[in-house]
């Protein structure tokens, strides 16, 4: 049954090739549509736009674990310059998800004093983003 009401952030995960990145603490999706200005004199100063290129990315962050699904795969993906199918959504049948092929544009691992080792990665979309329903 699809999720109803307000959704807890804990349900929405980043999946790489269908497998959830484990022990994440943050995930986000950003889409930008390029605006092409087409204002002409006839518009009497009211700016007019049409949309051009579309750019999207996912970011994911979490607690570093050597023996879990996540940073191991992401570092391999970044070093090998691989493309993977990334999904952002829940594992609940009937909920919609956002999915597309992505490459890793940045990955950052931080190991501070008296704090857990954490990582963040930006998964830059390459090609179209699609929206589907979890089945």
């Amino acid at each position: 049954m699809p999720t109803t009401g307000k959704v807890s952030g804990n349900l929405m995960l980043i999946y790489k090739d269908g497998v959830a990145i484990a022990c994440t603490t943050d995930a986000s999706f950003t889409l930008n549509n390029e605006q092409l200005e087409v204002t002409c004199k006839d518009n009497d100063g009211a700016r007019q736009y049409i949309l051009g290129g579309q750019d999207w990315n996912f970011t994911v962050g979490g607690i570093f674990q050597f023996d879990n699904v996540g940073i191991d795969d992401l570092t391999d993906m970044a070093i090998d310059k691989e493309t993977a199918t990334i999904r952002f959504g829940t594992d609940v049948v009937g909920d919609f998800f956002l999915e597309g092929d992505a490459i890793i544009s940045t990955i950052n691992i931080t190991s501070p004093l008296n704090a857990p080792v954490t990582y963040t990665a930006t998964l830059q979309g390459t090609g179209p983003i699609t929206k589907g329903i979890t089945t």
Partner: protein
Amino acid sequence: MWVRLIRSHGKIKMGKVIKVIPSVARKMIEDKRAIEYTDGFPVKKIKTDFFKPK
């Protein structure tokens, strides 16, 4: 869906409990590469007056 791997999946070792999308979980279970994992997760309690006699 949470599954326990009974075969390694890429670099993920056998025995690991992982969360996967339902379609992947069904394929893994069908191919006998994983079993459904439900242990250790709280069962959601539903509070309702629907079944109470009027």
